[in-house]
């Protein structure tokens, strides 16, 4: 099969949850292979919704979505997804190893049991995230940072062609954060990464492009924020963004170039 020009393509997508106004409107976006796209935007601006639309979990009311050149639901198994909150289901009776194994699971085809290859992928993913020694632990016994590592290992176990991460560093310690960025940077040599984040450090060091979402979307092909984007997305208070400690490299230089 001819490989598609873009890994993720959205054309004029509109999405609204039942009976409310659109969360996403007129969104067009194309993500090239091996791009590292950072998705920024205010809370409630539709960042997580955008990821769910890319995955096919949510179906847009208008527009077209393609993932790896196909309708999302057909290709979603090649995607490693790290959902926003790894801490919601803490009491659940499941071991770390079994959670990571979920990344190998293939649903919708009768009964499934893991092969030797699946086991090896799980080992590799746990090794990479430094959680091998926790394999038998119950998910609820881990710290927040450890649980986040498990969620990322689960996505790595997929051996994905594309990785979508929803604020993976929101609740983790600095050490995990650094480790995560290193791993993502390394992975990015081979696979496409889309990461929703509040953390602009990631943007400076790793992202190759940036999109700002606040119902509508601004996409910039380089890893920099333009004043227009900040203004349009964050509206009247870009100060908040600056106050987070935006490294100045991120912001476009106005005069010199």
């Amino acid at each position, binding site marked *: 099969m001819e490989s598609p020009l873009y890994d993720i393509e959205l054309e004029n997508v509109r999405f609204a949850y039942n009976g409310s106004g659109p969360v996403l409107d007129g969104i067009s976006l194309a993500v090239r292979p091996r791009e590292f796209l950072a998705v920024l935007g205010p809370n409630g601006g539709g960042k997580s919704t955008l990821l769910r639309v890319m995955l*096919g*979990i949510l179906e847009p009311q208008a527009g077209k979505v393609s993932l790896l050149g196909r309708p999302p639901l057909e290709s979603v198994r090649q*995607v490693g997804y790290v959902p926003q909150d790894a801490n919601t289901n803490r009491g659940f*009776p499941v071991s770390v190893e079994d959670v990571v194994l979920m990344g190998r699971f293939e*649903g919708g085809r009768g009964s499934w049991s893991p092969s030797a290859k699946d086991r090896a992928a799980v080992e590799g993913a746990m090794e990479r995230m430094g959680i091998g020694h926790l394999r038998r632990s119950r998910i609820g016994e881990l710290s927040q940072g450890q649980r986040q590592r498990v969620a990322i290992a689960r996505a790595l176990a997929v051996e994905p062609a594309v990785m979508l991460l929803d604020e993976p560093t929101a609740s983790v310690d600095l050490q995990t954060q650094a480790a995560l960025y290193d791993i993502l940077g390394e992975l990015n040599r081979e696979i496409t990464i889309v990461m929703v984040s509040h953390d602009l450090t990631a943007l400076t060091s790793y992202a190759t492009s940036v999109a700002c979402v606040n119902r509508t979307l601004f996409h910039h092909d380089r890893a920099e924020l333009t004043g227009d984007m900040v203004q349009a997305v964050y509206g009247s208070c870009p100060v908040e963004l600056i106050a987070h400690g935006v490294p100045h490299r991120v912001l476009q230089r106005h005069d010199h170039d």
Partner: protein
Amino acid sequence: MIDALQFGFMRNALLAGLLVSIACGIIGTLVVANRLVFLAGGIAHAAYGGVGLALFAGFSPFLGAMGFSLVMAVLLAALTVKSKNRADTAVGVLWAVGMALGVILVDLSPGYRADLMSLLFGSILTVSSRELWMMGGTTAVVAATVALKYRDLLVLSFDPEFAATRGVRVARLHTLLLLLVAAGTVVAIHAVGLILVIALFTIPPTLAERSCRSLAGMMAVATAWSALFTLIGLDLSYRLNLTSGATIILVAAFAFFLASVRGAKKRGGI
């Protein structure tokens, strides 16, 4: 209670208790893990509509409850698949409508009103061999379905969004889950009745959850707790001449209370 075993009805009751425990251990675990307690309560109570229908039309209340709760499960699945939480109004309405419909249909049914209290609160001591077969068959179907779809159910229960990215047909599996709840409810009706069934769905799995590292383990431990409560409850109700279903539930509730106090102490609360 050993001497009571000479009675056929007591042997039937023990066997029924075991079947109910297996059904509740499996289904209750899924209910607790998926936070479906309210939905399960709705299905169980709405089943009374099926009881009324069966009396009105003159067929077995067991089949009536089964058919009605299965239909209710499909309906509720459609209403709740998008957001489990926001549909609670609809669940509450269907819950009450099912019961009200049952009451009215019973009113309209001619003649003798079968022992309806036994369906509402259970009558494990009067379970017939035929009912045992039906309970056994239903429990076997439930257990086999869960075994076949174990991984799907595990991935869905833990994280429905991630499950969707692994190719799990979330809407379909959610419907299957509620159908299983309906089937489990109908089995459990015999022991504790459709009003009290929710306690057997929730207490044993909650006690089991704390110590288990897998969903299957939780099902097994919940089944064991459930069997213990049923046995003790049955024994007490025999000795003290109390209603069996309610006694079983109070035994379970007492254990739940003890475990909660112990849990609070462990955390240094008291």
